[in-house]
């Protein structure tokens, strides 16, 4: 009897895993990098790595469901005659018409208004759907200036100068030709059917000194009534926040790398920028160093999912958060009810991210008239309002347990971290220790 070595179990490479192999094959076959939406999917240090320290003896809790915990926030009180007053510190992030359907934009407006917060336009200009249904609407001033006009600028409640986006700091956009309907083409002053490249930088200014003059122009045009936000991708949050403040921003929006996008290169989404958690403390530090914390408000976005995320972000020093991807899910995107159709597209509910192709079964990231009908703006708006209110209640529950009668009274001292990475990024102690990595030089 001949002896045979026992076979080894086939082992796949951790470096060349199944997904990586499929990407190599896809690139070789198509000659184009993968373009997709939905933001970073890799695991990153995040709010889950932080825990709250509820009150016991050293802190005194408030009664849930009885004692008030304020959730309101005022944005843009630095210069604007008419600051934004919100009931909750959760806003809807900019998402473009063109990327989203008209009914989806209407639903965002309805939901946000019901919950007492604001929505934001996007790269495609302002639509009647969102202006008509959003009590407070932030108008994005983007490098592409698609659809930018004086009338809409003055119909806005605030203006957000978009310098960068978390999913793609330094990157422009690409709306592929197949998604360009007649209406989208008209709004963007471009022929139907061609790929529409959104610029990565503003055409009429370059550095921070120019930004200051640009902000002055926007204030002059709108008679100093409207708050001016400046939105940056989370790459160099300390310096970008400081320069935005120097340029005169009323509100700084820092979008971490878990922020969503409609259509960008996968390699860009997953490899450029910093995690949201890592962006907060440097941005807050910049405001504190300038003596502008709470005077210039800070909004953080990128992967906010629930009231705990909201509470943690506020505890670290932000004034409000923004949600994008989560809002789309609340409207009904990636819902398992469309599983059969997701399967036909080669994916599954929860993983669908080819928003740029315009075939979204949920009717949200599409311009297909038949698919769009699947979004009932009233019902979807109601779901979004429910979700926003639940997040707020969750955050209040945590804040009361920490003894706070306002969400904005949460503080870093209320937090510990589960991992060294999160402790270092958030600037809070590792759980069970008083060690904050990096503090005092070690």
């Amino acid at each position: 009897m001949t002896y045979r070595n026992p076979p080894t179990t086939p082992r796949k490479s951790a470096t060349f895993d199944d997904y990586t192999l499929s990407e190599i094959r896809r690139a070789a076959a198509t000659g184009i990098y993968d373009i997709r939406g939905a933001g970073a999917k890799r695991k990153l240090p995040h709010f889950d790595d932080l825990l709250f320290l509820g009150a016991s003896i050293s802190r005194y809790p408030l009664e849930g469901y009885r004692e008030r915990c304020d959730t309101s926030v005022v944005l843009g009180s630095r210069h604007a005659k008419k600051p934004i007053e919100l009931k909750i510190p959760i806003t809807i992030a900019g998402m473009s018409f063109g990327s989203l359907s008209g009914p989806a934009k209407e639903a965002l407006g309805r939901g946000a208004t019901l919950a007492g917060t604001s929505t934001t336009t996007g790269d495609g200009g302002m639509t009647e759907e969102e202006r008509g249904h959003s009590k407070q609407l932030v108008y994005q001033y983007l490098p592409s200036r698609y659809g930018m006009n004086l009338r809409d600028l003055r119909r806005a409640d605030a203006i957000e100068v978009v310098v960068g986006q978390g999913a793609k700091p330094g990157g422009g956009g690409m709306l592929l030709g197949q998604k360009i309907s007649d209406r989208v083409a008209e709004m963007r002053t471009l022929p139907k059917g061609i790929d529409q490249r959104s610029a990565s930088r503003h055409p009429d200014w370059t550095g921070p000194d120019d930004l200051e003059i640009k902000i002055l122009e926007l204030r002059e045009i709108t008679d100093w009534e409207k708050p001016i936000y400046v939105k940056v991708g989370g790459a160099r949050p300390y310096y970008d926040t400081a320069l935005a403040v120097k340029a005169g921003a009323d509100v700084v929006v820092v979008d971490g790398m878990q922020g969503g996008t409609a259509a960008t290169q996968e390699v860009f989404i997953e490899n450029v920028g910093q995690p949201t958690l890592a962006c907060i403390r440097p941005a807050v530090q910049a405001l504190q160093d300038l003596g502008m914390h709470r005077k210039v408000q800070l909004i953080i976005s990128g992967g906010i999912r629930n009231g705990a995320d909201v509470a943690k972000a506020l505890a670290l020093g932000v004034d409000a958060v923004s949600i994008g991807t989560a809002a789309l899910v609340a409207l009904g995107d990636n819902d398992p009810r469309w599983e059969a159709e997701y399967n036909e597209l080669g994916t599954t509910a929860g993983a669908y991210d080819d928003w740029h192709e315009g075939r979204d079964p949920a009717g949200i990231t599409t311009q297909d008239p038949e698919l769009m009908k699947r979004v009932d703006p009233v019902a979807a708006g109601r779901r979004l309002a429910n979700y926003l209110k639940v997040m707020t209640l969750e955050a209040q529950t945590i804040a009361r347990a920490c003894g706070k009668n306002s969400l904005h009274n949460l503080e870093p001292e209320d937090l510990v971290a589960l991992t060294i990475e999160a402790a270092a990024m958030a600037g809070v102690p590792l759980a069970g220790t008083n060690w904050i990595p990096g503090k005092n030089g070690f």
Partner: protein
Amino acid sequence: MPATKLSKAAASDHASRVFDLDVSSLRELNQALHNLTPGSNETAWEVLHPKGSHSVAVGVDQPVSIDVRGSVGYYCGGMNSGSTIIVHGSAGPGVGENMMSGSITIKGDASQYAGATGKGGLLVIEGNASSRCGISMKGIDIVVHGNIGHMSAFMAQSGNLVVLGDAGDALGDSIYEARLFVRGKVDSLGADCIAKEMRPEHLELLQGLLDRAGVTGVKPSEFKRYGSARTLYNFNIDNADAY
């Protein structure tokens, strides 16, 4: 606004409403312009001593005429909707940015990004323009009597850019559907921008633009037309060398 800070022309033969920026603030000027309502008889305005101020006469949305006596800084006439602005001097960066309609005339030179993202109206620069003139233009007509700098009409979407002098490097890079007419030499064309045949309809269009801009003694046949080759309108890996 305090009436004492406004100076109306005293002479009865001068109906202009005069703002002296040595006396009044930029805010007062722009607010007064924004307060105009349709049918107002305050149709003639004069701005004195701008001294390079930024954002002069931005966001005007009534059909009034505004004569600016001197040079201006950034963004003069930004987002103009219907007014006729004449700058009797030179203009800084971004003059007429995102103009919707009306006209702006610069008697001197213009700095970078003149007419950027303009949606409509006419921008005339009687001197030279710097780099990125007409960048991302979206329907505006621009006529430059002199030369323009590099990267002009970058990503220009629609509208017309007329240059009586020369153009710098990378003219019309990544251009969409805008039409470029240059009388002098072009240092180089940008990606996807090519020289195109000047057909009768283009000669007619150009003559109209020259007439509107007050250009005389120049024939449309002296110009060359440039526009998009449309080879980069949809992504193709075989065009990767162009990116």
